């Protein structure tokens, strides 16, 4: 039917447009990382060129980007593991129990989330300085909990609610402890949701700039996004190196996100009970 064909065309065009808008900046970033400094600013833009890896070499040698990436991995994994370990039970508790204070607790979590980093930076820094924990990744792992835990709890409460209560009741009759039920019945059924929460929290932790910049400023301890910040303040912005670093910083996160994209639909079912 003609109408369907036209609709399909528009549908396709719309999606193609979206895809293009998302891809183009990425293409530009990757292309710029492979061009020489003069080529980057050339107009008309250079579309076909010989790739030139000097920027990557420079970023690795000059800016210690590999060390920064390692630090980011340590901090992100640490923060996510802690956040999920602590947040999943909390979400379960909020999902399955009605008790006094549950609303206040949720409110407290969200308030934590709303703290503007710029402001709490000063007290965190002063605290870290007092405890001689500047340049210590543990400080970051702890501070990131202010947004990891609320996110994890928010996403998982409804996941847990979606698990059929009958399963848990049956296990209860079998004599399993509450925690046992949580661990062996509920959790396995919500792995997709937990994965999504973990990846999303991981993305935010990886991308954090302000906290990392102030609390782990040393060249050995700093995380990947802070390398981006340091380019901003140089006299000359070495655009090739900036883009090379950008590719290396966003690469892992984007790949991670793509890897789990299938789970996202299942993991983000907020408040839906089949």
């Amino acid at each position, binding site marked *: 039917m003609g109408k369907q064909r036209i609709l399909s065309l528009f549908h396709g065009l719309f999606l193609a447009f979206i895809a293009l808008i998302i891809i183009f900046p990425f293409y530009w970033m990757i292309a710029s990382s492979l061009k020489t400094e*003069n080529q980057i600013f050339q107009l008309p833009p250079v579309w076909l060129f010989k790739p030139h890896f000097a920027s990557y070499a420079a970023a690795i040698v000059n800016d210690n980007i590999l060390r920064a990436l390692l630090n980011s991995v340590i901090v992100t994994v640490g923060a996510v593991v802690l956040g999920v370990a602590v947040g999943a039970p909390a979400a379960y508790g909020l999902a399955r129990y009605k008790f006094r204070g549950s609303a206040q607790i949720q409110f407290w979590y969200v308030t934590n989330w709303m703290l503007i980093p710029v402001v709490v930076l000063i007290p965190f820094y002063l605290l870290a*300085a007092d405890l001689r924990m500047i340049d210590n990744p543990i400080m970051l792992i702890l501070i990131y909990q202010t947004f990891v835990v609320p996110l994890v709890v928010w996403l998982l409460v409804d996941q847990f609610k979606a698990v059929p209560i009958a399963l848990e009741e049956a296990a209860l009759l079998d004599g399993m402890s509450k925690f046992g039920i949580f661990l062996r019945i509920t959790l396995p059924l919500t792995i997709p949701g937990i994965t999504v929460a973990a990846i999303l929290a991981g993305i935010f932790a990886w991308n954090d700039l302000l906290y990392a910049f102030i609390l782990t400023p040393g060249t050995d301890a700093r995380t990947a996004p802070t390398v981006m910040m340091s380019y901003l303040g140089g*006299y000359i912005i070495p655009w090739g190196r900036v883009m090379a670093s950008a590719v290396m910083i966003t690469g892992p996160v984007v790949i991670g996100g793509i890897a789990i994209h299938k789970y996202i639909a299942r993991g983000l079912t907020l408040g839906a009970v089949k």
Partner: protein
Amino acid sequence: MKPSVKSILLGSACAVAALSFAHSAQAWTLQQAAAPYKGETVTVVGLDRPSYKAAQKLTPEFEKETGIHVKWVIYPYENTLKAETLNFVSHSGQFDAILSDVVWPVDFTKANWVTPIKDFMANKDLADPDIDIKDFFPVWRHAFTIKGELVGLPFDSYAGLLYYNKKILKEHGFSSPPTTWDQLLTVYAPKMYDPSKNLYPYALQSARGETQTADSFTRFLWPWGGRYFDAATKKITLDSPDAIKGEAFRQKLIKFGPKGIIADDHSQVVQLMGQGQVAMVTEWSAFYPTLIASKAGPDIGVTTEPAGPKGQYSAFGGFAYMVSAQVPKKTQDATWLFIQWLTSKSMAKPLLENGAVVARASADTDSALQAKFPYLAPMVTTWEHGSVPDWRPQIACYPYFSELVSEYGSDIETGQYTVPAGMKKLTGKLQHYMNSTGCWNSVNVPKH
């Protein structure tokens, strides 16, 4: 036979004389002075700029000679003050050698965060007799003299210079660059303005932040007779007719610049110049190597900035090293030895050759070096005749002061305010800020 008293006395006298001769013949050496500090670690704040790269390259020489380990911590400029201030307020002892921009010494000394230089200079064991403070250009000594005392050792020093594209100038009938701003605007600019060919006579870096304050706003203040304030009467004077005249000139000048220049920082302006789109820029001396290496490099010449109707006042900026007062004495001494070494006469030449910029007259006026680095000669001329140490105010609350200047300066530049209205508003804001923070009490008015 018992020696006579006389002979004993004579013998002792001779011995003492011999010993003292030996002592004075034994000159001060770094190695000796550093002996008690072997094994210490000194943490030094640096920036991602050529001078510090050069310093880092040469640091192993110091480490080898003294056994003191030096750790460099590199910060982006915009965050250096933040990091250092937080360090001091929290007493975290993160840094030993403190880097101070020319506008920060009041900040650091007022709160007693740094140990006075004179303490170290008075210590015979630590002070290099060859330090020759007078070898630093007067403008630099004065810039870091607070309440009559030198508080830092200058390192990484800049002058604003005029870079021009000889080829473009020649193509339009000019065999030499302009010497006054008026000339640049009325004679040179109109001839070289052709947007259709992407050709502009002049580009002014104006990005929000210190660039707007230092490179854009202040540059068009002094040469017309404008001043930030009168310390004696505690009044901001940016609404004076001279100040307004200067900034109005800026508005006329940027009409000849590329669109969007208001957001451009050093990086973009240097790119534009390097690509041959702009004929002239007034940028820091530190950009010479980058410009020479660009596409337009072979055509680039460098000279002093143009003068205004009320005199020559080129952009002035740079840094100095100080010693943190919050670290143990032993570390402070070791730190002193390092910064003394880094800023010494003997290190000036090697640093220069590795891309650094230093304020040592002996090195900068050396004819061989001047031949090798063409920017040195105009830089020296600028420091000797065309700069003032408080080109930007030396006040404790400079950072936010500069923020306000940067905000209104760029608002005026984009045309959001007319020059008189904008200057009046800025004056009001600055006056309120200075009054409410009690900053007037610590204003430093250096010798010119």
